[in-house]
């Protein structure tokens, strides 16, 4: 009998496992894929603030490129430059980073197993049925944690997660490319506009030495595919003429649908499995790890009290909503407002806004400034009021 079985060895699952193992609980983490961290479904960016805030001492071999800002392009090609003058983030190599997180949890005492697919829950969520390289076995546990990513069948089985609505997920597609002519290898490039990426953006995240993740997220209910838009962006841009594609990634990104209730009896969900993603930029590493840390505190308390009921685990909902959910909900509202903007509105905003404003907005701060600007656009008055 384990104390906790974690389904999925991404950053969220490994963060839960690491925290609990460090406190002496017995934890097993099962990862469906044969290699932890690959294939990635991620642009691989993380802010220095997030790493400090999460107490993540990420080893150098996981960090590819220091980032000091971003070049944000509006539909007419004008840009807003965010230049912090110092390193404010990194692009990671998820293959290395995820494995480091898993190894850290293993060294703390968790049992990690790749190529181990959890296929079912035991009654009352008191354990799982896991298929390890073709051999099935039952593993009993006092609690199960779903950390199996955005489609998490186990979170659905437990009734915590419903199928995602098309409009509040992004369809994502990405190439890792080399021999790129980057504008500035220390800055992220972001491209907005209905023609470029409807209700989303194209990103170029430098990974050092002319390498970058070149990707796109578009609303899930758009007729044409994410690949169509990204390929068109690349074809129309001479900078890619000499570039080679070394990796192809795709995936779905939850950009809304934050869950009021992420728990069930003897069960909770973290990371993408609980839609813990920033709704404006789609980043999920930080939110997943933060969710994992909050979850581990509540799990440890519930195990000690010998009460892992739905009711007692509600504390996870409360703390998460207090610490993360409320600000992410504001960001979600911002995403809803931005959806109503046409290319003319975006061009207008690019003229009026500075880099620092965009940094604030992406964290749900100072949204009233955006609201006030939009009040000057007659057809945007209704949306603007949502932000003030």
């Amino acid at each position, binding site marked *: 009998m384990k104390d906790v079985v974690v389904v999925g060895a991404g950053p969220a699952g490994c963060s839960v496992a690491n925290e609990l193992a460090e406190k002496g609980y017995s934890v097993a983490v099962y990862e469906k894929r044969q290699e932890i961290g690959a*294939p990635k*479904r991620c642009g691989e960016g993380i802010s220095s603030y997030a790493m400090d805030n999460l107490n993540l001492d990420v080893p150098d071999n996981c960090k590819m490129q220091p980032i000091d800002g971003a070049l944000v392009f509006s539909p007419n090609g004008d840009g807003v430059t965010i230049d912090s003058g110092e390193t404010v983030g990194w692009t990671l190599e998820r293959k290395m980073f995820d494995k480091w997180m898993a190894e850290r949890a293993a060294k703390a005492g968790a049992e990690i197993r790749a190529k181990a697919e959890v296929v079912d829950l035991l009654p009352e969520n008191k354990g799982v049925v896991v298929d390890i390289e073709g051999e099935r076995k039952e593993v009993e546990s006092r609690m199960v944690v779903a950390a199996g*990513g*955005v*489609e998490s*069948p186990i979170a*659905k089985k437990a009734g915590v997660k419903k*199928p*995602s*609505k*098309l409009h509040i*997920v992004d*369809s*994502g*597609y990405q190439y890792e490319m080399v021999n790129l002519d980057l504008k500035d290898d220390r800055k992220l490039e972001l491209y907005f506009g209905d023609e470029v990426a409807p209700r989303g953006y194209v990103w170029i995240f430098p990974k050092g030495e002319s390498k970058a993740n070149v990707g796109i997220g578009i609303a*899930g*209910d*758009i*007729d044409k*595919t*994410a*690949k*169509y838009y990204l390929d068109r962006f690349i074809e129309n841009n001479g900078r890619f003429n000499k570039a080679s594609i070394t990796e*192809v*990634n*795709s*995936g*779905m990104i939850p950009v809304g649908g934050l869950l009021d209730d992420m728990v069930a009896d003897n069960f909770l969900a973290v990371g993408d499995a609980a839609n813990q993603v920033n709704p404006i930029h789609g980043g999920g590493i930080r939110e997943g790890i933060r969710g994992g840390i909050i979850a581990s505190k509540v799990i440890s308390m519930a195990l000690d009290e010998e009460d892992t009921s739905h009711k007692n685990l509600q504390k996870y909902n409360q703390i998460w909503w207090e610490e993360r959910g409320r600000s992410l909900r504001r960001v979600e509202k911002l995403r809803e407002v931005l959806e109503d903007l046409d290319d003319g509105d975006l061009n207008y905003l690019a003229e009026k806004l500075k880099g620092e404003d965009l940094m604030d907005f992406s964290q749900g701060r100072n949204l009233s400034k955006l609201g006030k600007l939009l009040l000057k656009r007659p057809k945007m008055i209704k949306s603007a009021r949502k932000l003030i």
Partner: protein
Amino acid sequence: MTWDIERRKCLRCGGCVGVCPVDALKLTENGVKIDEEKCINCGKCEKICPVGAITVGDKE
């Protein structure tokens, strides 16, 4: 019904599995599998697929 996937295009990202409202899709080692009994031909998997690997036809 006709539900078809071009396996050479599929990147096994699981987006389709995540949006299926009736739990008809499953991600396996060999790509996405459909349970035709459950499928209601809603077309959501076709829309979310980032690479256009899925085609959903009309229910006969």
